[in-house]
């Protein structure tokens, strides 16, 4: 398998397990009131992102894959081999930890050489391997440096090199970019994307940042409260979110309802007119920028999606104002600062919101 | 020689009985003893009954005998309270010269007493009230059949002595010299109780300790007397201290210790008459 596979969109989950290649896991971990139960399948070459809010169980899932947290149920197969009873040191799994956990008493070179050394290589062989990896990461000059002398981006690459130097069949990355500042993050994200594209086995990364997930992964698995709530290619998830969490992440207003032709009756009462012709349970989504606000009830407007709302809060979003509204239909609306001033928007003010049907998007639930 | 130790044990039992009788006698004729004790010229008033607290610094080996005498003293003189501090004579002497508030000092050697008298902390001249001498302490039943001082030099036998710096060690050295014996012990203990403990715990086969210690250890050790012990007899002097907070009661206590009945109690504990 090569990185070419990755460009093929919608490489379906489980496609690799037919031949026994890749990852096939059901991770069940019981923590008293919290129960994690997620199904993960990936073919070699896949980069899967576990996306979810804090406390959703992403890191627990990662630790379970690495063998650092025991499974309370389910199974774990990698390239056809059962791993659930294999101790972590015997699993062909590499981990890049959130804060890298580079061994502070070893140089960058010896950090990377640590894995090959544990796998039985001589000191010289291990160092040669490590030097090769550092070279690939563009870190040849930092080989002799102790971790505390490395910048955040360099440390991240050393951590990646260290994980890859054991030639893992499963690479796990825990919030790989969270420890970096915004500027470094951009560079490192691009580099990481390149390295992951070159990686021939399964990579699973955990993140709470949708941008990281969408740039780095070719498939997202969204986890909330220990469950998978949605999975698929990034663009699908961005277009058709199925939970409020994802809708918020991708910046959409999302409502569940029942469709009957072009009219969707929302579970909360009001109806939305859409262009799609559907029947049965659906989601309706529209971006905040599709919302138009009026000081008074518009009379000549052709918009049929009209709701009376009240301003709950205002915040600046780049060069625009994001208005959070409550009322008949709770929604987020984006408008320019000028428009906000003209409308005299302030918390508690009454406004009328309209959305054109062509701006909405309905899809089966 | 084995008969000697048997005889000794029998005698010990007799003495113990006698001491109980002596205590009874003490309490019976307390008034007579009290008047007899007023012989000291320093005494201010013989008729005045002693009262209040008395603090006695006494050598550790006196513990059993003095505790009994202290109780007796309190019964004879209601209103008195005798407090003892039993320790090594050296450290007691150091405390006294360092200014510790005490009424009476009873030491286990003339040398330690001299420290106190040299420092001019004593009132009057110390008087020897008992004597103590060494005995060989062996394991119960004397499995190594040690019968003389010379037996201690037997190879393979683990013997402990007191260090030469402490009184029992100095005494041991004198007896060994008197017997013309060269002895390599496994250890020089820091005090006589340390030496005795080693035998009690069966870590050593024999130790040179005081008669009184052998007696106090009961049947955990067996004592063996030897003639050379006469060469190193320890005198136990007692003295009233100059800065005694309660000199009258202290004098009365010293008189009790030196009385015939008092000596009888101490003899029962293994001490010798001066």
């Amino acid at each position, binding site marked *: 398998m090569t990185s070419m596979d990755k460009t093929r969109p919608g490489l379906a989950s489980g496609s690799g397990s037919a031949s026994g290649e890749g990852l096939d896991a059901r991770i069940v971990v019981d923590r008293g009131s919290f129960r994690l139960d997620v199904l993960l399948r990936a073919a070699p070459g896949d980069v899967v992102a576990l996306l979810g809010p804090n406390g959703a169980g992403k890191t627990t899932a990662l630790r379970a894959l690495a063998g650092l947290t025991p499974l309370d149920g389910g199974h774990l197969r990698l390239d056809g081999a059962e791993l659930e009873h294999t101790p972590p040191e015997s699993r062909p799994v590499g981990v890049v930890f959130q804060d890298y956990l580079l061994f502070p008493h070893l140089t960058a070179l010896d950090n990377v050489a640590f894995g090959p050394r544990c796998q039985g290589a001589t000191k010289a062989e291990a160092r040669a391997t490590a030097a090769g990896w550092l070279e690939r990461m563009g870190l040849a000059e930092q080989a002799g440096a102790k971790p505390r002398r490395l910048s955040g981006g360099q440390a991240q690459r050393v951590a990646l090199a260290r994980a890859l130097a054991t030639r893992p069949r499963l690479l796990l990355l825990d919030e790989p970019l969270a420890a970096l500042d915004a500027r470094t993050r951009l560079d490192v994200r691009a580099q990481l994307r390149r390295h992951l594209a070159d990686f021939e086995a399964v990579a699973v990364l955990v993140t709470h940042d949708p941008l990281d997930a969408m740039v780095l992964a070719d498939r997202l698995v969204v986890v909330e409260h220990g469950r998978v709530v949605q999975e698929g290619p990034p663009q699908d998830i961005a277009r058709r979110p199925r939970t409020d969490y994802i809708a918020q992440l991708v910046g959409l207003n999302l409502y569940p309802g029942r469709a009957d032709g072009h009219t969707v009756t929302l579970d909360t009462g009001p109806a939305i007119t859409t262009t799609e012709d559907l029947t049965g349970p659906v989601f309706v989504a529209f971006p905040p920028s599709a919302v138009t606000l009026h000081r008074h009830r518009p009379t000549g407007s052709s918009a049929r999606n009209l709701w009376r709302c009240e301003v709950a809060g205002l915040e600046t979003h780049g060069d625009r104002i994001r208005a959070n509204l409550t009322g008949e239909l709770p929604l987020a609306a984006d408008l320019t600062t000028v428009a906000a001033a003209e409308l005299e928007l302030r918390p508690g003010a009454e406004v009328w919101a309209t959305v054109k049907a062509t701006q909405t998007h309905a899809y089966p639930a | 020689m084995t008969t000697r130790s048997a005889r000794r044990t029998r005698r010990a039992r007799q003495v113990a009985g006698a001491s109980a009788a002596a205590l009874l006698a003490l309490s019976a004729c307390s008034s007579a003893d009290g008047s007899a004790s007023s012989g000291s010229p320093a005494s201010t008033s013989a008729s005045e009954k002693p009262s209040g607290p008395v603090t006695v610094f006494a050598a550790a080996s006196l513990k059993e005998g003095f505790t009994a005498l202290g109780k007796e003293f309190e019964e004879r003189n209601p209103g008195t309270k005798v407090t003892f501090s039993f320790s090594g004579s050296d450290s007691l002497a150091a405390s006294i010269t360092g200014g510790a508030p005490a009424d009476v000092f009873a030491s286990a050697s003339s040398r330690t007493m001299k420290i106190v008298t040299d420092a001019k902390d004593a009132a009057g001249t110390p008087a020897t009230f008992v004597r103590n001498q060494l005995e060989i302490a062996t394991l119960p039943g004397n499995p190594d059949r040690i019968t003389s001082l010379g037996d201690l030099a037997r190879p393979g036998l683990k013997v402990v002595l007191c260090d030469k710096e402490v009184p029992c060690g100095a005494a041991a050295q004198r007896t060994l010299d008197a017997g013309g014996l060269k002895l390599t012990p*496994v250890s020089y203990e820091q005090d006589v109780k340390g030496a005795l403990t080693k035998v009690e715990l069966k870590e050593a086969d024999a130790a040179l300790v005081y008669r009184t210690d052998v007696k106090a250890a009961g049947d955990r050790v067996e004592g063996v007397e030897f003639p050379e012990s006469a060469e190193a007899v320890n005198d136990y002097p007692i003295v009233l201290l100059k800065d005694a907070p309660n000199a009258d009661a202290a004098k009365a206590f010293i008189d009790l210790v030196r009385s015939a009945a008092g000596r009888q109690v101490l003899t029962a504990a293994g001490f010798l008459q001066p």
Partner: protein
Amino acid sequence: MTEPDKSRAAVGTLTGGPLRGRVRRHRPAVPIPLLVPALVGLVFLLLPLLALLVRTPWRSLPGQLTSPEVWQALRLSLLCATTATAVCLVLGVPLAWLLARTEFPGRGFVRALVTLPLVLPPVVGGVALLLALGRNGVVGQWLDSWFGVTLPFTTAGVVVAEAFVAMPFLVISVEGTLRAADPRYEEAAMTLGASRFTAFRRVTLPLIAPGVAAGAVLAWARALGEFGATITFAGNFPGRTQTMPLTVYLALQSDPAAAIALSLVLLAVSIAVLAGLRDRWMTAS
């Protein structure tokens, strides 16, 4: 009087701790309720040491210090304290790891037991050792009958007694360091293929080295000054079991001046070793 000044500086390094306080920053106004007790405490700690120096018989000192007995006792003290520290390291570091990194029923209880020798009077510790490892001890009788080994009254016995008393210092110190150290480094090592032992040896041990060193110094100092358990368990015989503290104690009985001189030697040796180690750590880190 150059000597007191020198020792004051050396004592300062002792109280400052060998590992911390590298940089001292000037801060405005130390609160009086803290400053006064602090100074009283400092004086309280230093005064006895100063008194020792003031009352040292400097004139007779050279004669006392060059006697073969003193050198014999000093050599034995250093040998035994160092060996005891080695024993503490070999047994104590794994014990500390067990207490800090594993879960087993009764762990808290075991931890309390480990610290027991800290509060036990050393003489009681010595008696306990006799009851366990003596000629007639619970284990000692088998050592004697099977291997012909008896520990009391031997130099090995001194090492045993010192290790018994000093080990808790090391275990507590190392356990504290281990608890403060991030256990995830061990996990990281394991994901790289290291067994738990390899992870401990190649990652954890280097990380906690300063704590281990501090614990070893504490244990060494405790072993060097050990008196009660030593004389109770190993007895007192010059050249074999008579360490410096025993020599000091016995000299005190008859010749306080000699005892003061010996104490001074012990003090100087401790300060020299601690200062030497401190310098080494400073340059290493």
